[in-house]
């Protein structure tokens, strides 16, 4: 009778250990592999400001059809031919969602 608690103690501990291990493992590494080290590097340095943007500082997309002056300059990149108009962003409207199908019969 005295042995009964000890007989069940080891399997009970095993089951607890098993459950604990599963709980630890099944949570998985997550999006950043667990440590998040790589992603923290993506945070930007403090101190940058955008105050230098004057009225002539333009970043937006062209509307399309705009042409460039015929004075090609040397660049590190391959510039598109001067005769080619600058394209715009996609402007085709979204397709409306499909209407629900009428019930059969």
């Amino acid at each position, binding site marked *: 009778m005295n042995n009964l608690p*000890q007989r*069940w103690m*080891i*399997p009970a*501990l*095993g*089951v607890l250990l*098993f459950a604990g*291990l*599963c709980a630890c*493992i*099944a*949570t*998985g590494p*997550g*999006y*950043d592999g*667990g*440590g998040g080290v*790589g*992603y*923290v590097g*993506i945070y*930007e*340095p403090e*101190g*940058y*400001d*955008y*105050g*230098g*943007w*004057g*009225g*002539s*500082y*333009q*970043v*937006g*997309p*062209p*509307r*399309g059809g705009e042409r*460039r002056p015929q004075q090609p*300059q040397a*660049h*590190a*990149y*391959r*510039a*598109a031919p001067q005769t*080619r108009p*600058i*394209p*715009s*962003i*996609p*402007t*085709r409207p*979204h397709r409306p969602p499909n209407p629900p199908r009428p019930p059969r019969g």
Partner: protein
Amino acid sequence: MRDNCHHARHVLPYGLCALLLCAGGVATAKPAPFELPPLVEPATAEHHVGKVIWVDLMTPDLAGAKTFYGGLLGWTFRDIHAGKTDYAVAYLDGQPVGGLFQPAARPDKQRHPAWLTFFAVRDVDAAKQTALAKGARVVVEPKTYPQRGRQAIFADPEGAFFAVLASTSGDPSDVLALPGDWIWSALLTPDPDKDAAFYQALFAYDAFDLPSEGGLEHVVLSSDDYARASVNALPSDSPHPHPRWLNFVRVVDADAAAAKAVALGGRVLVAPHVDRHGEKIAVVADPTGAAFGLMEWSDTDSQKEPR
């Protein structure tokens, strides 16, 4: 002594069973995968290399970010929690438009949160080889998320962070962004010429040098005959010439959106003003400092589609 042996004979089988159970458990238990939703549902065969197809916000305050972006842009969210990761997918009109990610580790005080820009590629590993050959460095190695695709994060030769993604469900169609969705991305860099060449090599862009007032270089990058992004010289008086990608959300009214951003705890970094296309843009920061742009674009001002 005899008692001890008797005792051991009884206990040993149970102990062995427990050990076997543990070993089996360890062998069979697999990590719960971090499941990101597909980029496009239903899946398509469309691929638009070089198109900005996703953005992730790295933030130390996921709950605060959801309140801010939900209030400002009408996004709704679906939470994903796995391991130490807290992530929320942002939806607009039922379509995923970005992710909000709270990494386990917090940034030090010298850094602040940022949006990370994802470009479409067909082959992440090939893109990695090209990026490395052209002077980039790997920030996060290529990794596959079953429903989303394979992605990796790099720093370009000037140090701006960006990501590439080969979507398993195809890329979003080339349609005009809805108000509240991302419409444009601009790289601000000390060396636009060099950076434009780098991204052209990586994504096979066509590059258009635009005339700009004040001599600041402005290069438009296109693929599939659509403008995808621009590369801009940082203003010469910029006190901290740190290169970065800046993404713009389409809004109906940039003034109103900027005011609302402030009311929700954000800041205006560049006040609304008229840009190249004749409508207003602004740059704002969310309450934790992550910068993004606001851009008006009216349907009626769009040029006729080129095809």
